[in-house]
């Protein structure tokens, strides 16, 4: 399915919103304005954007420790996100969750997750609820290559396949789990090989190409909506920053050359080149989109900085739902 001009604009906007948000978050982290762990999504923007543009608003997402990109792509409010990352009262989780637990249930984004493998079973549950209700909503599980080595992932995928649930499994294969290269911890070259073992269709896409991801997601979502069960997409991609924090080069576990090679395939640069060369979107328009988003990000930073720390009185709230 050829993406429309509107779709192209949407892909570009979402990728750029993620990129500029993450770069700003990284700078705050470096300046010690962001407590805790920060797992940046930069480099992988085409995956979340391609999938989320293909999704409907009512479709759900479960995410990972690297979850900001998924929330931004789902339409997340950058101000509430920035405030949450800073641990402020006006953040998405009122400062209780932070980067690793950021969520927006109104946008059907069921949360980032601090436990590797923790998200996929939750997407399966949402898919079950969709099927149970008889609607045609689909849930999407985003997860890393490394997470496909944990039991919860296998249990969830097999269950979705066995129960023919409307779930789209999206593996973001960035070739590393923390500091360990993928080939050391699995004996297959393509994560998608696992799909056959569950009896579900699997496809590999270039995770640096938002249009390719979008098209694959459209197919998988349509299959799920039609009641034909789950699909597994493996998106080959790369994270520019270290597993956590803002260092990019000089790491023991990967070469600088490798980082530079991947950056040459940058999803946003490649996309902009493609659409301008095809005469679909002008360079001026792209630049003005960028300026708009940068202004939105700057406002988000300001919002976060001006937001107060949560009040101590909230420490023990939200543990349970009050029953009448």
């Amino acid at each position, binding site marked *: 399915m050829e993406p429309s001009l509107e779709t192209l604009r949407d892909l570009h906007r979402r990728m750029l919103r993620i990129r500029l948000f993450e770069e700003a978050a990284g700078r705050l982290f470096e300046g010690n304005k962001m*407590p*805790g*762990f920060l797992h940046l999504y930069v480099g992988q923007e085409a995956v979340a954007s391609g999938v989320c543009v293909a999704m409907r608003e009512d479709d759900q997402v479960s995410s990972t420790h690297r979850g900001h990109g998924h929330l931004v792509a789902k339409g997340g409010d950058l101000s509430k996100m920035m405030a949450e990352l800073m*641990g*402020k*009262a006006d953040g998405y*989780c009122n*400062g*209780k*969750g*932070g980067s*690793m*637990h950021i969520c927006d249930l109104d946008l059907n984004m069921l949360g980032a*997750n*601090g*436990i*590797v*493998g*923790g998200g996929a079973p939750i997407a399966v549950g949402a898919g079950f609820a969709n099927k149970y209700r008889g609607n045609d909503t689909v849930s999407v599980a985003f997860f890393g290559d*490394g*997470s496909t*080595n*944990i*039991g*919860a992932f296998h249990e969830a995928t097999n269950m979705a396949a066995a129960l023919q649930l409307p779930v789209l499994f999206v593996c973001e294969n960035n070739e590393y*789990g*923390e*500091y*360990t290269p993928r080939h*050391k*911890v*699995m004996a297959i070259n393509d994560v998608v090989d696992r799909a056959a073992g569950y009896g579900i269709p699997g496809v590999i896409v270039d995770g640096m190409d938002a249009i390719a991801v979008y098209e694959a997601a459209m197919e998988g979502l349509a299959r799920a909506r039609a009641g034909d069960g789950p699909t597994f997409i493996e998106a080959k991609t790369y994270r520019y920053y270290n597993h956590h924090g803002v260092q990019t080069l000089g790491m*023991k*576990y990967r070469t600088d050359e490798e980082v530079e090679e991947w950056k040459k395939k940058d999803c946003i640069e490649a996309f902009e080149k493609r659409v301008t060369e095809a005469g679909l979107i002008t360079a001026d328009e792209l630049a003005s989109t960028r300026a708009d988003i940068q202004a939105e990000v700057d406002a988000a930073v300001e919002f976060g900085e001006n937001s107060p*720390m*949560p009040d*101590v009185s*909230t*420490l*023990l709230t*939200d*543990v349970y739902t009050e029953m009448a």
Partner: protein
Amino acid sequence: MSATETAPAGTAAADPGERELTYLGAFNEAMFQLMRQDEDIFVAGEDVGVQGGVFGSFKGLAEEFGDRRCVDTPIAEQAIVGLGIGAAVAGLRPVVDLMFMDFVMVAMDQIANQAAKLKYMFGGKAELPLTITTNGGAGLSAAAQHSQSLEAMLCHVPGLKVVMPSSPYDLKGLMVACVRDNNPTIIVKNKRMFGSTGPVPEELYEIPLGVANVVREGADITVVAYGRMVEESAKAAKRLSEEQGIECEIVDPRTVQPLDTETIVASAKKTNRIVVVHEAVRFGGLGAEIAAQVQEEAFDYLDAPVGRIAAPFSPIPFSPGLEGHYVPNAKRISAGILETLGRPVPGA
């Protein structure tokens, strides 16, 4: 192991002038020395090889011992612990690492249903010289899934030994004891103590499991604390001594399973008042167990109910603005001590 074998107070801190190491350095040195001594010891876990562990606990081991004895595993906590169990039953002496104590919950079947019970279920026929290493504790804005202190859950399972070292010296000696123990042991480093330094002998030494350490002697009240709470309690004790002449006796059980009740009870009988401090949630925590044991064995000696200073009943919040009020600190410990002493608490 009886409390009379406990080294007298102060001996845990070895000779002044002795070489100092960080908490992590002490652990790392124990690993090197143990692995050099015993070919059957290997370590397996996520990022323990080339990276030397995400916190540096296993730094350099891969270089010296290679990937045969220092094994980077897939992200698979159940299988990591299972690998340790199987290898132990087959005669090796595994050290397996769970990056964060929270991930104990991911591996709980292998820990609680398998490792803890094999020997008993097999009529005593299995031997499990397995050590699980992990990192616990809050205070780093790591939020609800990377900050927990889950020792009470582990202590509740017969068959496991649970170790919570409070200093570099203790960490090295207790780690050696864990690895040499023929039972499944879980040793929990505290993430906020990685950089704290203290004297550590260069030679390999062992601190027996199940033997408390009287960290500070005092006549007025007993403070039972373990892990990082020992340091916080010591700060509180120092201030109370200087400002109000109150002398706390700090007892660090060092292992919470087995628990050296004898030393704790002896101290309570001496001071007649006792509080327990831990980072873990108060409800169902070690404080409840210790309070129960103390009232069973020293009821007539107590001048006040056993106090508990611990985390409140909620998951651990991310924001420093909230977490700062969640984890017990010297100030809250002082307040708890004063309350148990029936003295006015400033600001209360």
